[in-house]
């Protein structure tokens, strides 16, 4: 009876999660976002951030074309990672004690599931939809938002995951670290983007420090939340389909014998 119940829960967990996310997104305006809004950055600075953004997105698109031919079963992972990044990065989370709202970024999870370049592309697509239809970010600031959330979030998260796995951390701890550092790095980059464009005659690093400290009370706990979310999802996928993840990051994911032999049920 208990096993039946657990099996039902597992098979319906996606539906329940999707429904919960969908319902929570009914939470209306104002849009509690962290993306840099339209018009905040001067045109020259907005253009500067487009350069690395375009470079990494183009490389990511080329990798997607190659991987979809080479790796069987990558499409569902792309779908899950893309949808997760889109949903998580518009998900307003109220932070107790601080009394403010922000949201996780989702790209560290995407980077572990599909690799950092592909995750950058998925993040860029999510940011474009959000900028066009959800008043999240902007078209002129799309490049800056890609760099902070999609690019830095993916690569720092991925790097943290690989380093922690090399140090023999468990899958959960490594993915937790990926979510934690990916989230914090995103906000540090946003702080740098703002400070570099807006410091004027003042000190760049002084303004960077001030903005980072202003973000900290909201983002420190949200980073922990993102770490728990990333750790949970990666552990779940790894227990059920370890071979999919080991194709994305060879030598970091080791096979789980029970899962391969069908013992995951």
């Amino acid at each position, binding site marked *: 009876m208990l096993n039946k119940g657990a099996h039902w829960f597992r098979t319906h967990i996606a539906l329940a999660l999707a429904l919960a996310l969908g319902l929570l997104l009914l939470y209306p305006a104002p849009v509690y976002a962290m993306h840099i809004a339209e018009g905040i950055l001067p045109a020259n600075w907005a253009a500067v951030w487009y350069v690395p953004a375009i470079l990494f997105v183009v490389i990511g698109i080329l990798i997607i074309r190659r991987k979809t031919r080479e790796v069987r079963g990558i499409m569902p992972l792309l779908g899950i990672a893309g949808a997760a990044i889109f949903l998580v990065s518009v998900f307003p989370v109220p932070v107790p004690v601080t009394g403010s709202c922000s949201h996780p970024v989702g790209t560290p999870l995407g980077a572990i599931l599909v690799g950092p370049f592909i995750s950058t592309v998925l993040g860029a697509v999510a940011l474009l939809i959000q900028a066009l239809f959800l008043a999240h970010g902007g078209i002129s600031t799309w490049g800056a938002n890609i760099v902070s959330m999609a690019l830095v979030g993916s690569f720092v998260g991925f790097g943290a995951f690989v380093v922690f796995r090399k140090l023999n951390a468990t899958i959960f701890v490594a993915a937790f670290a990926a979510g934690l550092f990916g989230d914090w790095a995103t906000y540090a980059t946003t702080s740098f983007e703002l400070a570099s464009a807006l410091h004027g005659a003042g000190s760049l690093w002084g303004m960077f420090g001030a903005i980072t400290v202003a973000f900290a*009370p909201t983002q420190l706990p949200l980073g922990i939340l993102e770490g728990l979310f990333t750790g949970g999802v990666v552990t779940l996928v790894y227990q059920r389909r370890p071979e999919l993840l080991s194709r994305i990051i060879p030598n970091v994911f080791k096979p789980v014998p029970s899962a391969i032999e069908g013992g995951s049920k």
Partner: protein
Amino acid sequence: MKSSGKIITTGIVVVIVALAIWGWLVLSPGVSEGAEGPWGGVDVTVIEKYAADAGRKARTPLINTGQGDLLLFVFALGGAVGGFVAGYYWRRLIVEKDEGGRVTG
């Protein structure tokens, strides 16, 4: 060697989390409310605040969905589509493989 790696990395993460919680509690009283009151987003309380100090102001989005309940509708639509895509591919990736009785590539 492997178990010591697990213990050390878990310890590092626990220390970082403890420091983060300490930083959160210490820095929180200094957070000022935005114009929209408590529970405002960091886009207003941080980004727009520093931008305003530097003489920059957020512009109306290219497609202004912030009229009436339009934004609510767009959020609902985005949540439904995103949730459907995530659920559909999760089922293809995890559930259908499990129902087959064994995990295959």
